């Protein structure tokens, strides 16, 4: 039975608790709030009630080992891809975490599965109040199990990871084992009362969903939610947290499975368009039709040299000018959200412009003064698109 109780004399059936409950465990029945068996005793409904009609007794019983029993502070997963490595985005995630919990006066800690190879300098660069090492080896299952056990033991309010593969593997895995709420790609993160709210993109960025959950909440951040890392400062205190992961399945020790990381080399293909932080897009007016193949080939090489991806609009693709360059168009479900989108010789149809609505900065390079792309551009260069591409290629060291 839930420990939480509705004081019938005070309840006026306003439904604020129903809206606050992340577990759908409250309903208004005959004008009064009523709790279901699924109530997790998280207590979120108590501060939401304007009548003070929710009584939360004792500690949180919780639906799972950790859910509904959150403590203070934010943890940032700092483990990189290989043993000893620190996630290169951990400092930016720590800065985002600080912005969220600083108002509550709560600390930010980095959690690592190993002592970082970079020593004190690597720790200082994280910009956190404390570093916690939870030795779990280098096998993904064991790392996730160790983080889950640490989470259950110390109950931080938030566990955040970067958008990188290592963070997603560890944080999502630990959330599953600790049975706490998890979401990937969080934006606009806020904490309030006993829970957290954030926005995430769905359907390839076409829609946003505002999501809430009772603390502790684990999530990986969308890159656009990263903060600016704090410069300077000394190395934070470091402590080792020895935690015992429960059960053979949780530790991975009995499964017999293992992964051994081998050779690491650069990608032989360009960054995927959907994941690129910089996109160079060409349109019908990038170059005359007879030179379009060379122009789009240069566009691809330049984008790759800049660490980004090449794209085109539907008009260029349908005209057969763009070769195999992928299309950006909302009607085809191909929406993107890079940090920088440079449109070269591209007019910008409504479906194209809708597809880049979440780009952080849009640059239009066009000589068409009536091009719709101008209405969605942050910066406009009215020069010859091909000349700008050639200048970009030169800057990127592309022959």
């Amino acid at each position: 039975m839930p420990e939480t109780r509705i004081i019938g004399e005070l309840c006026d059936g306003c439904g604020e608790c129903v809206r606050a409950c992340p577990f759908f465990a409250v309903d208004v029945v005959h004008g009064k709030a009523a709790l279901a068996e699924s109530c997790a005793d998280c207590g979120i409904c108590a501060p939401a009630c304007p009548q003070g009609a929710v009584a939360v007794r004792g500690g949180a019983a919780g639906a799972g080992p950790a859910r509904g029993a959150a403590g203070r502070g934010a943890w940032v997963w700092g483990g990189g891809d290989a043993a000893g490595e620190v996630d290169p985005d951990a400092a930016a995630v720590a800065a985002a975490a600080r912005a969220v919990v600083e108002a509550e006066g709560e600390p930010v800690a980095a959690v690592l599965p190993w002592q970082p190879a970079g020593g004190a300098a690597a720790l200082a660069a994280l910009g956190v109040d404390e570093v916690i090492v939870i030795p779990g080896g280098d096998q993904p299952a064991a790392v996730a199990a160790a983080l889950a056990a640490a989470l259950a033991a110390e109950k931080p309010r938030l566990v955040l990871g970067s958008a990188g593969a290592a963070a997603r593997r560890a944080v999502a895995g630990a959330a599953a084992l600790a049975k706490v709420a998890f979401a990937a790609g969080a934006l606009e993160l806020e904490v309030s009362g006993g829970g957290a709210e954030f926005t995430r993109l769905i359907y390839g960025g076409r829609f946003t969903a505002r999501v809430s959950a009772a603390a502790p909440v684990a999530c990986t951040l969308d890159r656009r939610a990263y903060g600016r890392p704090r410069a300077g400062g000394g190395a934070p205190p470091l402590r080792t947290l020895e935690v015992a992961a429960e059960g053979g399945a949780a530790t991975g020790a009995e499964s017999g499975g293992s992964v051994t990381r081998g050779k690491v080399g650069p990608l032989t293909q360009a960054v995927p368009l959907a994941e690129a932080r910089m996109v160079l897009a060409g349109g019908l007016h990038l170059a005359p039709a007879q030179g379009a193949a060379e122009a789009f080939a240069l566009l691809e090489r330049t984008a790759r040299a800049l660490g980004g991806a090449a794209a085109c609009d539907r008009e260029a693709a349908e005209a057969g000018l763009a070769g195999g360059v992928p299309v950006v168009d909302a009607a085809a479900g191909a929406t993107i959200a890079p940090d920088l989108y440079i449109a070269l010789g591209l007019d910008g149809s409504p479906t194209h412009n809708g597809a880049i609505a979440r780009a952080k900065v849009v640059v239009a390079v066009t000589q068409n003064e009536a091009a719709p792309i101008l209405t969605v551009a942050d910066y406009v260069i009215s020069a010859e698109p091909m000349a700008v591409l050639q200048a970009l290629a030169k800057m990127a060291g592309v022959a």
Partner: protein
Amino acid sequence: MSDGGGASPAGASPAGAGPATPAAAAPAGAGPATAAGAGPGARRLFVLLKVAPRPADVYFSASRAAVDATNAEREIGARDRTALEVARILAAEAGAGAGADAGTAGVEVAALSWAPEGDEKVLRAALATGATRLLHITTPLDEAAAADPLVVASGLAAALGRGEPWLVLCGDESADESRGAVGPMVAALLGWPFIGGVVRAKWAGGGAGGAGGASGEATLEVEAEEGPNLVSYVVRPPAVLAVNRHGPAPKAASPLQLMKAFRQPVERLEVEVAAPALKVRSLATTEVRRRLNEPIPGAAEDALAMLWAKLRERRVI
């Protein structure tokens, strides 16, 4: 819904397997056909499939403040289909005769999906493109539960726990939620290693010999994209591999393969549904931000230099 004719594969347990067994006959927690479809000692490659509305067909209904997928065509996610192709290739390399006409040799490809009952016809495409078995979790899942990766991963892990998988493959992101959470969560719940961003997997040593026979040790050589790097792994299953968009192109089914697939049995099973921990409070279309619309004067090189300075100032680059 008709499951078509045909007997259950050898070794199928009665609960939840085959066309004659109604889904209700498989109680939550009961085992489905753990040994169905292949002989003893077979290596089972399970591929997790998600059926979702095609993104291009989905619209936002402002009046209902909801995503309207009423008229959207439902399909197996592209990356899940790529994962199925990786499994099909592995089975083929092991000499299992994978594909729509696969036999019951040492490696079996089983597709597993938690989807509404109405999606079964969509899922049958998996039987035409490499899967030798189709396991369909038919336990109803409301919108809140379906949006919570922990709920989905817990159910899938429970089903996998009964199916004796040797390797689990999935797409690294779904078309609708784009979370990439279910793969690592399933791996953690099973206590197995996980690799994301997989683009290739092959038997170490190559071909059937590398499969190590039905009972021998077998390892896989896996290549995965991690940020700007391509990383090689040696994987000793069990393990969970999430395949990204750069994996092999999914196989298209011929009409004949689809007809055969519609005659194959589907094993239905049920799982317990955990309480969702996430609550979706509101949905909206992505906002269109006000743009600066600032002209950058000058010829190409000068304008570009000025632009780059502004982007650096704004910490965009």
